[in-house]
């Protein structure tokens, strides 16, 4: 194997440009003659658009065009990607999501007009001159009131604020109810999974271009999956043929889910570019990001855990209201259902699981997948109620989990929530956690904290998640409107270096370093001779992009399969060159050879022969050395982990300080451990942000109170401890060729319940009767809980 293959902690080659200011993000592109777009956005959460007078604005200097919702009545809506069927068999409600609001505005920040001008300042000035007569209506904000349909509706035409009322698995409902009724012990917990604003460092940005000479469109945009954006724009919204539309997602400064989706601004700049014959650019302000990016989480949940007196789990029953905001974002219906309900058995051999989810329209920004997407919500509910149950039963939180863990010899394991887990070893992770986090030394550390007047607590968590959502056949039955494969083309160039075109999109994940490690490992070549091409629909095969920790498990597997095809063809060429049969050719470390002889030929010579096919068996073998593979996984992958954290609570102020955070994860085979550690650490920071700091809050009128970084608390370095990250306790994924499971979201899934469990533990040990505090566990909330 060459240096830098699978398992090597190779430094990220992309960091050279990122760390020296040479990254090229969408806003760094300014095509010749670019014009600028600014949006008029609603100041009210719910309002009837009575009139929009653009005449004064249109007469202002530099103004080129003004669009309102009226201009897009004939085009399609931005669709939901997953159809959910309610318990009563009714399909979910899908009100149209227009490019610009028409008739009504439905959340603060809902765009109802757009101005294109020669300069951004002129566009902004003209936006202020638009006279919109919008009659403010009562806002629907609180989910419980929304579900009751007692007042206003977000979408009058569907007659309800409930998008769907989903049961999983509906056939298990009666048995679960019965089991809970008869159980010797039932623990109930009501909790809120707080609403989050993704806050990628780079705000969204889109540039539309149109070439009247060819009729070709180009959209340069901040996207995690350019092919999906192209498909949605082409097939659903604007109807531009896919072959006439290139979508380019260059360097993207963070997505965390919020850039998976197609947004109306992208369609707007394309339509405007066509109308004006000039490039049109829009760059979101941070305020626009707060108001119009898809938010995350926002569940209100009641969970019940039924068990024997000895802590053996009998049933989990969950009732959740999930906020979808004012419109259905592309994966907003999949997130609280198939990415949440299916995980509600956790790591446990519980026989009965039932989940009911009501998705609710409100006059707030759309809510969709955000780092973890449904799985953090599932893990948080489950691992909080298990902790509460252990406390009620007087059991150790480690012991109650171990008692119910699926054991390592039980795989494949069919969970009571409908998934088949292929591999794992939760006891080994917990064994490792006990040692690494030094549970034995906790009491001494607690005593030391007590001397300083601080309450110390220890929180643990065991999580399982599901990555690389698949297979397409199954998700199709469950309502997905897309396939969930990915694709890669491996192109060996004549001089032997290699270009790999991938459907995944790197916006922080390090694909440019990690994917070449796979190819290098298989071909026995130097990874420095391999480059990745991504983010440009005119160059790459049709892939589904990057989200849900799928890139390595799905697209990496496509890279693996394409490379296998390269080896097969190269072997045939080598056999011809060595005058033998392919079956007799061995390939290792980049050399084709015939066993027992000194006959061999290197990979580079074979590549050259493929492109200069002199003395070549052209009748039976095509020239060239380029292969494409589409990989559709047989199952999800199931990363799992065991986390521990110790916190100190200042009993006078309620302030929580995280003393330690230990994360043991099973990601299967790790291609680049350094990148994986970085992914986990980033996830931990975001999970700790959710647990302690972040909260997106609307008031009763639907105004976003936490609408800027002055009120929305992002985690900073000094909010975080030094992390201990260990992914050595790995079990191989049994159904993909690399054996990898996915690591992008784990930290954000495993850390919130760990932190909250630790805070509740600290308070309980300090003699306070507190069994739950909703996130973010801010100083004021902790103090209020201690002084209720």
């Amino acid at each position, binding site marked *: 194997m060459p240096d830098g293959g699978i398992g090597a902690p190779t430094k990220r080659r992309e960091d050279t440009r990122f760390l020296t200011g040479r990254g090229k993000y969408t806003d760094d592109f300014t095509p010749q003659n670019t014009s600028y777009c600014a949006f008029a956005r609603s100041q009210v959460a719910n309002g009837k658009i009575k009139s929009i007078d653009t005449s004064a604005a249109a007469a202002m200097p530099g103004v080129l065009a003004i669009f309102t919702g009226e201009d897009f009545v004939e085009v399609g809506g931005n669709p939901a990607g997953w159809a959910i069927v309610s318990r009563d068999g009714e399909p979910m409600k899908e009100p149209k999501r227009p490019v610009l609001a028409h008739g009504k505005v439905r959340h603060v920040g809902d765009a109802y007009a757009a101005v294109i001008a020669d300069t951004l300042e002129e566009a902004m000035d003209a936006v202020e001159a638009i006279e919109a007569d919008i009659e403010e209506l009562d806002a629907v904000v609180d989910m419980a009131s929304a579900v009751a349909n007692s007042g206003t509706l977000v979408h009058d035409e569907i007659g309800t604020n409930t998008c769907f009322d989903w049961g999983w698995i509906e056939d298990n409902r009666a048995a679960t109810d019965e089991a809970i009724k008869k159980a010797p012990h039932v623990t109930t917990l009501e909790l809120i999974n707080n609403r989050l604003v993704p806050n990628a460092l780079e705000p969204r940005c889109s540039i539309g271009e149109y070439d009247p000479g060819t009729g070709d469109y180009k959209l340069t945009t901040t996207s995690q999956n350019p092919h999906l954006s192209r498909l949605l724009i082409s097939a659903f919204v604007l109807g531009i043929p896919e072959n006439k539309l290139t979508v380019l997602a260059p360097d993207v400064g963070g997505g965390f889910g919020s850039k998976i989706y197609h947004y109306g601004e992208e369609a707007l700049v394309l339509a405007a570019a066509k109308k004006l014959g000039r490039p049109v650019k829009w760059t979101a302000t941070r305020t626009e990001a707060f108001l119009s990016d898809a938010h995350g989480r926002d569940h209100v949940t009641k969970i019940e855990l039924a068990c024997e007196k000895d802590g053996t789990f009998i049933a989990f029953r969950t009732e959740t209201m999930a906020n979808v905001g004012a419109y259905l974002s592309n994966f907003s219906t999949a997130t609280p259902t198939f990415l949440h309900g299916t995980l509600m058995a956790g790591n446990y051999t519980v026989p009965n699981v039932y989940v009911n989810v009501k998705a609710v329209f409100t006059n707030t920004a759309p809510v969709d997948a955000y780092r973890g997407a449904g799985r953090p919500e599932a893990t948080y509910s489950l691992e909080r109620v298990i902790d509460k149950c252990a406390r009620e039963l007087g059991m150790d939180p480690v012991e109650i989990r171990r008692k119910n863990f699926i054991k390592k010899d039980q795989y494949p394991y069919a969970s009571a929530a409908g998934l088949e887990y292929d591999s794992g070893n939760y006891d080994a992770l917990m064994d490792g956690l006990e040692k690494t986090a030094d549970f034995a030394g906790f009491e001494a550390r607690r005593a030391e904290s007590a001397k300083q007047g601080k309450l110390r607590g220890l929180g643990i968590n065991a999580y399982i998640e599901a990555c690389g959502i698949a297979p397409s056949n199954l998700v199709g039955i469950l309502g997905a409107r897309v396939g969930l494969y990915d694709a890669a083309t491996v192109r060996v160039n004549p001089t032997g270096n290699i270009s790999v075109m991938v459907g995944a999109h790197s916006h922080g994940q390090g694909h440019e370093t990690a994917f070449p490690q796979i190819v290098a490992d298989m071909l026995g070549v130097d990874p420095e001779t391999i480059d990745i091409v991504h983010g440009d629909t005119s160059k790459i095969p049709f892939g589904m992009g990057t989200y849900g920790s799928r890139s390595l498990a799905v697209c990496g597997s496509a890279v693996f399969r394409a490379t296998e095809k390269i080896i097969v063809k190269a072997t045939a060429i080598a056999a011809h060159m060595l005058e033998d049969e392919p079956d007799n050719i061995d390939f290792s470390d980049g050399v084709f050879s015939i066993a027992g002889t000194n006959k061999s030929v290197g990979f580079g010579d074979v590549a050259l022969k493929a492109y200069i096919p002199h003395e070549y068996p052209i009748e039976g073998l095509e020239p060239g050395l380029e292969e494409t593979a589409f990989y559709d996984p047989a199952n999800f992958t199931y990363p799992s982990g065991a986390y521990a954290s110790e916190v100190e609570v200042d009993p006078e*102020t309620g302030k929580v300080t995280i003393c330690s955070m230990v994360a043991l994860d099973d990601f299967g085979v790790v291609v680049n451990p350094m990148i994986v550690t970085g992914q986990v650490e980033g996830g931990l920071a975001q999970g700790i942000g959710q647990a302690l700091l972040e909260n997106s809050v609307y008031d009763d009128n639907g105004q976003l109170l936490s609408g800027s970084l002055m009120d*929305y608390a992002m985690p900073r370095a000094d909010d975080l401890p030094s992390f201990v990250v260990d992914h050595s306790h790995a079990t191989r994924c049994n159904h993909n060729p690399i054996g990898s499971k996915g690591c992008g979201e784990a930290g954000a899934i495993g850390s919130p319940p760990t932190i909250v469990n630790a805070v509740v533990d600290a308070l309980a040990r300090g003699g306070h009767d507190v069994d739950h505090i909703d996130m973010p566990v801010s100083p004021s909330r902790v103090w209020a809980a201690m002084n209720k």
Partner: protein
Amino acid sequence: MYDFDLVIPSSVADAASAMKADGAQALGGGQTLLPTMKQRLAAPEVLVKLSDLAEMVGVSAASGILRVGGATTHAQVAEEGAAYPALAALAGNIGDPAVRNRGTIGGSIANNDPAACYPAGALGSGATIITDRREIAADDFFTDLFETALDEGEIITAVNFPIPDAANYQKFDQPASRFALVGVFVARFGDAVRVAVTGASNGGVFRWSVAEEALSADFSASAVEGLAVNAGDMISDLHGSAAYRAHLIGVLTRRAVQSC
């Protein structure tokens, strides 16, 4: 940001006459004003830049007074304010390095943000605010939220801080902005004690006179045990209730006394 004219005066006198223009606005370090203008929430027609006026920059100590020029940055006060350690520490914990290298004491005090640190330092020290026209006692200067005794066009040229025998500032961060959710500045001059509170009150920075009396009689943390401000006057928002803020005032006052 809307268009505006920028005036760069060469003296305080020049600045004062430039401030007479219609729609003129003094520009200190711009750490509040410029973001507000970028969001089009403020639209001054003329900005008068004070930050490079040499006569308004600098820190000096003499006769028990620390004099800070009105255009002196927080970073410079943190660096050069050793004669008044509590004030230097306060300045060194405002915002982040970028803010401290731009933001000025005059800008902060003139803006009188109800959660800013300097108003507590000035009021707690019994400072004198010196302008191009007069001297104003801190007790008379901070009149209400974002309101001061400054007249139209008046420029803060310096702030004189009497250096106390002991002082300490305790700041409890608002988690997002890292302004003070509550900040308490305690200063002892002989037997006289001043306690100024920022971040907490609907009326902006204020002196906690009950605590001052108790501490003047007995300068110990136990002297303020059991004392409480009226929560009814306190701010209640996303980050803390009025009751929580009132409680923190007591906690931070005790801690400040202990740290003196």
